[in-house]
């Protein structure tokens, strides 16, 4: 397990990037402006990357690109290189691609198949498609449901669930496929704080077990605590990329209409009137408490 974490410790070992985007520019069909412009992004195996940005910045399009839906499903024009787990997107099919990369959509309604009567069957759907033997399928579905805490929903209809529960089902149906790379587009947007905390806990466990995670998220406090790296997207381009502390406290974010932590915001105002004396601004509660004390 620990071998996957070596890439974060700046020990000088050069890790192979599991996600490699080079000069990627992409335009949806029937639109004039590109949704992504000249994106260069490398993510190492086991890294947990958070993507932030205002609406329309290209966050979901970036997710679709890593997950192969751009361009294989959405069509449109793509330039540059997209490589995941050693395969190049332009030379692959979507059905091969999804064996390595799982995508949980922003809106779980868009993901649930509609073809299944129970949560259990819904989660087993992907495994059926790739012909996993019945016994293995059953144990994988049960394990995945246990991991995300939805075992008690097994016999419910996916459509009878709350938004937060549907999001967990959508996440579980991805995890059951055992992807190397997990792409999550605002996976907790419809959850209450306790649900959010649980899901972040699950994702952290997966990340620690070596799965690479790319996650779009607005909840800054959580990103600061969990992510290894933050990518700030703006107008289809990468505006900032780096350690959470550096990116999340940058003045650029406020100027461009990004959401920032209230701790950062209040400390910046306090700094103006001499009540914040640290050089760095805080992102988390603990940093804020320490700085103000």
């Amino acid at each position: 397990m620990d071998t996957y974490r070596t890439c974060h410790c700046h020990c000088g070992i050069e890790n192979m990037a599991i996600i490699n985007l080079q000069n990627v520019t992409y335009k949806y069909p029937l639109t004039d402006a590109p949704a992504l412009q000249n994106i260069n992004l490398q993510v190492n195996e086991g890294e947990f990357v958070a993507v932030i940005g205002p609406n329309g910045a290209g966050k979901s399009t970036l997710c679709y690109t890593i997950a192969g839906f751009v361009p294989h499903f959405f069509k449109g024009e793509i330039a540059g290189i997209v490589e995941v787990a050693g395969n190049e997107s332009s030379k692959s099919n979507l059905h091969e691609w999804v064996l390595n990369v799982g995508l949980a959509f922003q809106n779980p309604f868009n993901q649930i198949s509609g073809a299944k009567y129970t949560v259990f069957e819904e989660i087993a759907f992907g495994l059926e498609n790739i012909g996993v033997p019945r016994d293995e399928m059953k144990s994988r579905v049960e394990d995945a449901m246990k991991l995300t805490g939805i075992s008690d929903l097994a016999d419910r209809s996916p459509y009878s669930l709350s938004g937060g529960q549907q999001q967990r089902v959508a996440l579980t149906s991805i995890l059951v496929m055992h992807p190397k790379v997990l792409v999550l587009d605002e996976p907790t947007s419809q959850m209450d704080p306790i649900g959010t905390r649980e899901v972040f806990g699950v994702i952290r466990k997966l990340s620690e077990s070596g799965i690479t995670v790319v996650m779009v998220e607005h909840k800054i406090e959580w990103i600061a605590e969990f992510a290894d790296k933050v990518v700030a997207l703006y107008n289809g381009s990468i505006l900032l990329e780096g350690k959470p502390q550096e990116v999340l406290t940058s003045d650029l974010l406020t100027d461009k209409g990004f959401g920032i932590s209230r701790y950062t915001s209040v400390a910046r105002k306090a700094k103006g009137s001499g009540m914040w004396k640290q050089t760095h601004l805080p992102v988390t509660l603990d940093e804020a408490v320490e700085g103000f004390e």
Partner: protein
Amino acid sequence: MNIEISNLQFTYPSGVQALFGVSLNINAGEQVAIVGQNGAGKTTLVKHLNGLLQPTSGSVRIADWNTKEYSVAKLAHRVGYVFQNPDEQLFSKNVGTEVAFGPKNLGYPNEQIQTLVKDALTMTELSDKTETNPYDLSPTWRKMVAIASIIAMDTPIVIFDEPTTGQDAANIARIANVIKALRERGKTLITITHDIDFCAENFERVIAMSQGKVLLDGKANDVLGQDEILATTYVDPPQLTRLGKRLRLPRTVKNEAELLQELRSRISH
């Protein structure tokens, strides 16, 4: 226009009881946020205000109207409801028609409809999008269309169900501006939200619900400071309230201005 809810109980046709005796008075012009875990009964409660649901027992009055005696169409003159998912409420070919639908349906004269629509579009920053098809707009702008179409009905009471879910910082600021403008006009606003920071910054009264009952009800500062009770309904106090508590400030603070003021007075002492 006061709202009077007394001993409201509600059981869904499936047999699941969602409300266990809720009594509340909300005065004309109050801004109330309702918080609490998924399944606490928040949406079930507010759906009683415009007659989408009828009490199993107890009563709901909107001023002199008992909701039992009025249709949803009639109650729409007094209570506007902005759904959580804008796609459940939008159906017109362009934004202007969509926003005009409500007031037209309430039977207002043409001139008044035009004024109401114009005003609602200005408030929601949609004036340059009247000819656009709502489905060509981003989800954040569709949310503003849904809000505008309710504001245009000019009801004295407006309900927002999770207005900030999935919205970015710029749009949350826009929604906060709409709430402020409606407050200045003396509207009664009731908002269900998981966004406790948004709640703290925009509402004076907070009601916390748990398991179909009212757990806490009072001034925002008093309610948001009760972290142990809030935890039982899975609500964390706002970030700045938590910070104030950790810094052992003498009173509960709910926003930047209050926190900075307490820090200043601490320094000057």
